[in-house]
């Protein structure tokens, strides 16, 4: 019985000083602002309405609830610079508490009542699965789902309007498995998995490389906070290297339980569950200092596909810091906010590519044509094409030291199935002025 929190965070942006001085103002794409038309649902002459669903309350809220605040800050700063082709972005995100029933309800509301142009960054595999058919049958662009499930991108014929964004869990599992095979060939590997697509995809990827090294695979169900039997089973199986495909609160729980059992393997948490700052803040109240902040995670390995807050020299992080300081709300810039901003950045690239007067179908076409070439904060290129709606394809591996991380293996690329793993030879993209991309329209 979860309270259906009325915490609906809708942000309505007052039309901020409409800058209709010829779309050049950071808008990119060229064209004449006077030609702006209400070209589709959710588009007016001077605004674009986007919607999203996130867990702002409940078990998945820690961390994830910060993502839309990052996106909001990015769009606010973008609007101050004139928006996209003279249109400001109106971003509406609603709370689904990571409950698929709620997701259906809030997405219905976004599409039918708020009449958004597109859904952007809806979070969660079980949650977003609940609205996948609805969005595709209504023809609503469903961009950049905040989840690494294969569902969003491997079958564009069935789901033509849906696009993935982050590295999928199977590719991540492959990169992790390959790393273990090369660097820890004698390790006895245990898997700590969320009992759904997230854990399954990750396990499939990792087993492609180290099936014979795996001595145990334990699964937890989100919501059941007692992971004692699972961690004890990994210990009993003699695993000295544990890979976790789990959400952040379960990173904290697994660490606490391991502490209780005196179990000290080498930990490798997949990107989703590894944010050291968040896990540290979850752990720091315990035992009044007996468990000190992130030190439990010290030495743990993890993966990255975005720059992180502990790289203050990274130009993207510096730009996101500026955006957060100028347009953000309370609190610090976090990795989750960087995630939200990066997703918003890709969204703006898509809107620019869709031309002066975007339509829903045009937006999808633009991503398929141009998306594979886009550069931005994401470390590796996207795989967007007519045949694949999968997001970025690569990851680096890093080690947690104190509150920060250091890179162990640079970015490598792969794909689902039996694609090879290769090093990425590209450069980090340059930050454009004001952190606003400048893509050409690819739609006539």
């Amino acid at each position, binding site marked *: *019985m*979860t*309270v259906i*929190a*009325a*915490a609906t965070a809708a942000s309505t942006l007052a039309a901020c000083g409409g800058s209709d001085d010829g779309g050049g103002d950071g808008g990119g794409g060229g064209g004449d602002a006077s030609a702006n038309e209400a070209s589709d649902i959710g588009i007016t002459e001077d605004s674009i309405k986007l919607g999203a669903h996130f867990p*702002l*309350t*409940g*078990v998945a*809220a*820690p961390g994830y*609830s910060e993502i839309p605040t990052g996106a909001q800050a990015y769009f606010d700063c973008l609007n101050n610079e004139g928006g996209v082709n003279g249109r400001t972005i109106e971003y509406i995100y609603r709370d689904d508490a990571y409950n698929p029933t709620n997701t259906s309800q809030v997405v219905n509301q976004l599409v039918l009542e708020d009449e958004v142009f597109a859904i952007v960054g809806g979070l969660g595999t079980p949650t977003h699965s609940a609205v996948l058919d609805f969005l595709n049958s209504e023809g609503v662009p469903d961009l950049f789902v905040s989840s690494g499930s294969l569902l969003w991108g491997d079958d564009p014929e069935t789901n033509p309007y849906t696009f993935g964004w982050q590295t999928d869990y199977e590719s991540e599992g492959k990169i992790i498995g390959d790393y273990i095979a090369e660097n820890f060939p004698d390790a006895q590997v245990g898997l700590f998995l969320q*009992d759904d697509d997230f854990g399954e995809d990750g396990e499939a990827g990792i087993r492609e490389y180290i099936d014979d090294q795996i001595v145990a695979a334990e*699964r*937890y*169900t989100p*919501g*059941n*906070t*007692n*992971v*004692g*039997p*699972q961690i*004890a*089973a990994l*210990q*009993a199986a003699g695993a000295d290297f544990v890979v976790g495909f789990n959400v952040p*609160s379960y990173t*904290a*729980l697994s660490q*606490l339980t391991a*502490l*209780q*059992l*005196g179990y000290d393997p080498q930990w490798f948490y997949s990107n989703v569950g590894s944010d050291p700052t968040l896990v540290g803040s*979850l*752990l*720091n*109240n*315990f*035992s*009044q200092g*007996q*468990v000190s902040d992130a030190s439990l995670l010290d030495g743990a390995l993890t993966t990255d596909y975005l720059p992180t807050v502990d790289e203050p020299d990274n130009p993207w992080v510096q730009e996101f810091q500026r955006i957060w300081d100028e347009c953000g709300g309370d609190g610090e810039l976090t990795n989750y906010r960087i995630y939200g901003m990066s997703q918003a950045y890709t969204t703006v690239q898509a809107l620019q590519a869709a031309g002066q007067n975007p339509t829903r179908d045009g937006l999808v076409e633009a991503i398929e044509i141009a998306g594979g070439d886009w550069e931005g904060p994401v470390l590796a290129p996207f795989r967007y094409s007519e045949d694949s709606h999968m997001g970025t394809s690569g990851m680096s591996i890093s080690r947690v030291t104190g509150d920060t991380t250091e890179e162990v293996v640079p970015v490598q690329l792969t794909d689902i199935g039996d694609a090879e793993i290769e090093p990425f030879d590209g450069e980090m993209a340059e930050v454009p002025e004001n952190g606003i991309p400048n893509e050409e329209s690819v739609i006539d």
Partner: protein
Amino acid sequence: MQYFVNVTLTGLTEGMVYSAFALALVLIWRSTRIVNFAQGSMAAATTFIALALIQAGQSYWVALIVALLSGLLLGAIVERVVIRRVEGGPELNAVIVTLGLFVAIQAAIAIVFGSAFQSFPTPFGLEGFQVGDNRIALTPNSVWVIAAVLVTMALLVVLFRFTRIGLAMRASAFGQEVARLLGVRVGRMLTLGWALAAVVGSLAGLLIAGGEFVYPAYMDSLIVFGFVAAVLGGLDSPIGAIVGGLILGLALSYVSGYVERGSALVNVAALVILMVVLLVRPGGLFASSTARRA
């Protein structure tokens, strides 16, 4: 072998937590004949008060006492202001009102304290005891939980069995008219029953929270398990609540530890256990009366 010991100890500690919550339910049932669904969010409310104090720099023990006192107050207020209006009517009315309270209090917590996940400190360590070369899944904190629950149970047994006030509370719950004719001040007894139950609930809330994460809905799953434990034990008996909680905790831990994908089956297993016990002993394991209603 070590695995079995650890799974058992994990189950034992979890079971004690269910017991603590079941005790509060038993208490309110014995003193008012109402099943209080709001118990969980009332306990969550006092836990958040304690957390606020701890974060303001107070010690755990000060926070514990304040939480228990605010539980006492909250229980009395809820009874006087809300439940009193529906007492004496159909029993279902009162139960439905507690369901409404459950949701309302939880929403109030979210408004006052926010809905973020926060860790809740414990007064004792979270590292297991060392036995030989192995560390076992029994921590100083679990010992504190077990001791606190057992002492509370003993106090409740004494209260109901050996004191006049306990007798008066039971009388008021069983037959208001008769009790009133015999000179028992029924209204006060009902208020006292709610207040005491809320104190035990607050204690349970704090014990559950220690070394775990709290958020406004953190008691939700425990409400279910607490109810199952209380019903297993017969809803009437403090000892039954403890035994019910332990059986449930152990059984669920074994399911989670020994059944393939057991973690997902825990909730189903709780239902199966409940059904089996109720089929075999409809009154629960420790039922004292056969004439249970509601």
